[in-house]
């Protein structure tokens, strides 16, 4: 039995790949919450969760069950439709951007090459194809993510939520520009928007894009910081600044809807780490098995995000805006020029 010139077992393998990758991301999301509490606990000389299961390892499961059975409250004055779809709108883009990220070299299964990338496939000649505008796809998915927060903020009909939603949208629009411009530096080296090609170009010890020249090194760091701002993570977590806005856009949310916002935040963290790894840190290239290299780099970046959360205080709103528009944006434009000069002079 064949579909489009390929046997059923090939499609089975592709579906299995998608399932395994998705479950792995979900597990990472669940245990990132545990790791964050534990790590920040240690950094602040506390113990962190240690009651549920050995070393508190069952804590994420207990949290999930608890949130699932909590009472669900929808404010009487809320816009019901927007209030219900907002968590979904925020969770879906967080997961779909993972579809184009190559998380390993292709493996051979039953005589067919299976690329370890959800949206990657092999054509009848055996060459690997993927979404040829992969990076733009990630930017597009990221730009959809802001709607979840904006809708949540507006539909709750509460002043704290509205302020949180407004802050989030202004912040995400501002930092999207910086993210886009720093990625241009990568395009100039890779000459392709396909993530498979970008990773394939980064083989070797100093082949990682971040080590290619000083300009792209700075671009990589700025990209990571701007991603933190897009994720609404500390030190840019103004949309949910609990000291001033209670909990920002998710003030009125309870039960599973709140859990979905929480999952979206951690899924976005995983995706942002994976994108940084793919674009700047050589993707799956490295000393060990490709998948282990990739997962190791992603986990390291996740650790850095938690480390930053334990270390830095929150930015003030005007500082955040001037950092984005007056500091990062001009620097990113300069980096593009510098990168262009470097490439032309040393090629």
């Amino acid at each position, binding site marked *: 039995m064949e579909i489009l010139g390929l046997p059923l077992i090939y499609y089975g393998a592709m579906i299995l790949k998608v399932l395994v990758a998705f479950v792995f991301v979900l597990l990472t999301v669940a245990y990132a919450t545990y790791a964050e509490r534990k790590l920040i606990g240690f950094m602040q000389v506390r113990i962190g969760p240690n009651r549920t299961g050995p070393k508190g390892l069952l804590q994420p499961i207990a949290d999930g069950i608890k949130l699932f059975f909590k009472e669900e409250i929808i404010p009487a004055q809320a816009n019901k439709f927007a209030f219900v779809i907002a968590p979904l709108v925020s969770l879906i883009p967080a997961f779909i951007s993972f579809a184009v990220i190559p998380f390993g070299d292709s493996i051979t299964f039953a005589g067919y090459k299976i690329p370890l990338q959800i949206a990657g496939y092999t054509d009848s000649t055996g060459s690997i194809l993927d979404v*040829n505008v992969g990076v733009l*796809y990630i930017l*597009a998915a990221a730009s*959809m993510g802001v*709607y979840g927060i*904006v809708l949540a903020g507006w539909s709750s009909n509460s002043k704290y939520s509205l302020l949180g939603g407004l802050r989030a*949208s202004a912040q*995400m629009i501002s930092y999207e520009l910086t993210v886009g411009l720093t990625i241009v530096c990568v395009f100039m080296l890779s000459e392709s928007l396909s993530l498979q090609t970008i990773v394939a170009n980064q083989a070797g010890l100093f082949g990682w894009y971040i080590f290619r020249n000083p300009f792209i090194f700075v671009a990589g760091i700025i990209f990571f910081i701007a991603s933190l701002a897009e994720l609404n993570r500390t030190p840019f977590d103004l949309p949910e600044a609990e000291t001033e806005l209670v909990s920002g856009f998710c003030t009125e949310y309870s039960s599973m809807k709140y859990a979905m916002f929480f999952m979206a935040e951690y899924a976005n963290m995983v995706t942002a780490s994976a994108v940084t790894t793919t674009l700047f840190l050589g993707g799956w290239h490295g000393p060990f098995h490709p998948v282990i290299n990739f997962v190791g780099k992603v986990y390291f970046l996740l650790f850095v995000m938690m480390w930053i959360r334990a270390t830095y205080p929150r930015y003030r709103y005007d500082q955040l805006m001037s950092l984005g528009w007056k500091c990062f944006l001009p620097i990113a434009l300069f980096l593009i020029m510098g990168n262009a000069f470097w490439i032309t002079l040393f090629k």
Partner: protein
Amino acid sequence: METLFFLIVAAIAVIASILVITNKNPINSALSMILTFLCLAVLYVMLEAPFMAAIQVIAYTGAIMVLIVFVIMLLNVRTESVRRGKHAIFLSSMTGILMLVLTFTVIGRSSLTGMKGAVDTAMLTKYGHTELIGKYLFTDYILPFEIVSILLLAAMVGAVILAKKKL
């Protein structure tokens, strides 16, 4: 299979764009518009124009519509309660019918010439959509491209001057 998919997406696009004008709540209108734009992006992908699709989502849904939603939220526009005048309904429906007749007449009179440009599907799959756009934008169409960018720059400077009287 492809036709069925197209029909589903096109139906969603049409329904969403009707909802844009029938919704009384401005936020719901904006949401329907976002859905329309997403459907258009899907149609671009089906036409083998992935770059257009990505730019459609990034620029329209990701930037322009966010600004529109932002403004609606800031102005706190309430649900519209319009009194419907009989003259308005009569005149607008007459205009609509006239436009419909005009459209069908033009479609009926015109015929397909079969003219084709230099770029076809084979070329798109060989070189890639983004590469082709980049190549033409910076060779054959460099003058219009630069004129548009200067126009945008002028608009930007104008907006800054208007928004900030004291510089």
